[in-house]
């Protein structure tokens, strides 16, 4: 097997080869950088490729491993970080020209912990401007293409991260998820996306910082649940720099992957999640349910209270003071969709914002009560597959949707992922097949807070049963590496 053959493998397969000295982190990193330089002019998955830093870190890892100081499965493994996570000494722009010259003097906690685990940073990943949308049609850094069809959206906001992982341009990536920004692009690009329980992954280093109670934090994009579990083992843990971080005796996420799923009870939402859905997406998810049933999992229909109401006001009163200030100083530096969406929040009455927040709280408590009765809930990650950037209209079942109308793209793209953020629960998206047109479909598994081991076990064992435990290789990179 050549070094290029390893670029699209799981880190879990590559890490033992690095640990044993059979594979050189330096050669592997150089091969990855070569692939990035081949593909990125077209894919625009990366905004900033850090050749020098990557090679320095790879050389250090190789030296440490050769001296017997192997740190674990991330040692010598390359990865990327989304632009909304701070990287010390490296521009961290949040995908906006407003921060084009911002160079933090600190690392995000997930970044620093990955560095301590021996990870090799390849660069910063493209995103939807300010991590506030789902198309990744970034007016400043360009469109990051979908790894399976470059003319289609990769999803967002962590679209560059998802496409990079899918295309072998790094073994994993840190995105951020405040409404589905990790799971949705994972679904569209055929990789795994993790949104941990609220503040389980430290939010220190998010740009701009997130407020208390807002379930918006780092998430993981990886090629398998197994890889994500290895990453979780390295980065989960209390962080006093995030006020919401909490003391928690974290489990061994890798060890839990094989836990018995027989007899687990899963709720299938009887309202909302399957009401506006592409038939091929629904068929794939129903098929996944049958596979899990074959593994001994039991299913029951469940009604989700207040979800329509909470989603109808999910944006009301939800814009940060950071943006309010910048809209006054430099509104021309926002892309059109964000500029007008954010400015519209000026029209929200305080009493309405309070009422909307209360309704979201009611839904949050209701959703947590529902998931507490089950081991997990299961649903599609998105209600449609990735659509072309230039589409004016998309078809979802019997409905034609004017996708270019103000606010509609975000509403549609994040429709099935945002509820888990409002409810502050754990959730994962795993690949569950391709459409007849060859586009990935995501299966979303949602669990109680701190039930990551359960949803990981379900996702992993579903993947193993279907031959989808590791992300499929898109034709574009398969041809490149052939």
């Amino acid at each position, binding site marked *: 097997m050549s070094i290029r053959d390893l670029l699209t493998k799981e880190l879990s397969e590559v890490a033992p080869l690095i640990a044993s000295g059979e594979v050189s982190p330096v050669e592997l990193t150089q091969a990855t950088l070569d692939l990035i330089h081949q593909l990125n002019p077209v894919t625009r998955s990366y905004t900033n490729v850090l050749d020098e830093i990557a090679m320095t870190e790879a050389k250090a890892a190789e030296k440490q491993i050769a001296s017997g100081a192997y740190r674990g499965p991330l040692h010598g493994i390359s990865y990327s970080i989304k632009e909304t996570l701070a990287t010390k000494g490296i521009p961290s722009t949040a995908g906006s020209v407003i921060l084009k010259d911002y160079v933090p003097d600190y690392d995000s906690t997930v970044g620093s912990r990955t560095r301590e685990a021996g990870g090799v940073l390849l660069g910063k990943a493209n995103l939807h401007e300010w991590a506030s949308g789902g198309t990744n049609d970034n007016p400043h850094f360009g469109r990051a293409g979908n790894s399976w069809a470059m003319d289609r959206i990769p999803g967002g906001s962590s679209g560059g991260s998802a496409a990079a992982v899918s295309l072998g341009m790094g073994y994993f990536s840190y995105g951020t998820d405040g409404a589905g920004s990790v799971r949705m692009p994972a679904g569209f690009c055929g990789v795994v996306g993790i949104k941990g329980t609220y503040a389980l992954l430290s939010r220190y280093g998010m740009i701009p910082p997130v407020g208390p109670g807002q379930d918006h934090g780092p998430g993981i994009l990886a090629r398998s649940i197994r890889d994500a579990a290895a990453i979780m083992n390295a980065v989960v843990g209390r962080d006093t720099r995030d006020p919401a971080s909490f003391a928690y005796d974290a489990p061994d996420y890798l060890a839990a992957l094989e836990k018995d799923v027989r007899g687990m009870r899963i709720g299938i939402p009887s309202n909302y999640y399957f009401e506006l859905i592409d038939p091929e997406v629904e068929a794939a998810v129903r098929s996944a349910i049958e596979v899990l049933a074959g593994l001994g999992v039991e299913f029951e229909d469940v009604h989700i209270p207040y979800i329509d109401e909470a989603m109808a006001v999910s*944006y009301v009163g939800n814009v940060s003071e950071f943006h309010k200030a910048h809209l006054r100083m430099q509104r021309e530096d926002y892309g059109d969709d964000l*500029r*007008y*969406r954010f400015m519209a929040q000026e*029209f929200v009455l305080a009493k309405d914002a309070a*009422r909307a927040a209360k*309704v979201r709280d*009611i839904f949050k*408590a209701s959703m947590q009560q529902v998931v507490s009765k089950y081991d997990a809930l299961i649903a599609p990650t998105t209600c449609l597959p990735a659509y072309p950037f230039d589409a004016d209209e998309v078809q979802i079942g019997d409905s034609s949707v004017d996708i270019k109308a*103000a606010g509609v793209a975000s509403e549609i793209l994040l429709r099935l992922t945002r509820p888990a953020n409002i409810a502050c629960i754990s959730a994962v998206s795993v690949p569950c097949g391709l459409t007849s047109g060859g586009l990935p479909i995501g299966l979303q598994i949602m669990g109680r807070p701190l039930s990551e081991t359960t949803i990981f076990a379900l996702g992993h064992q579903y993947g193993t049963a279907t031959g989808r435990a590791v992300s499929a290789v898109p034709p574009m990179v398969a041809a490149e590496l052939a």
Partner: protein
Amino acid sequence: VPTKPLDLPTLRGMADAMTDLELSDYELERIKPYVESYLRGMEKIASIDLTSIEPESLDSTSYLK
């Protein structure tokens, strides 16, 4: 579709009352769909009796205790 679409003079009146941002007619036209969406959302939740929800039933952080 909002039950009562906003017209520009109404939106201008709202802007004058609620924000110090100086907004052109062009900007108001672009903002309008988002404001209509906000108003539709509020209409959707208008019938929920918030006083009927017991505060203790809203505790969603029990997993941290």
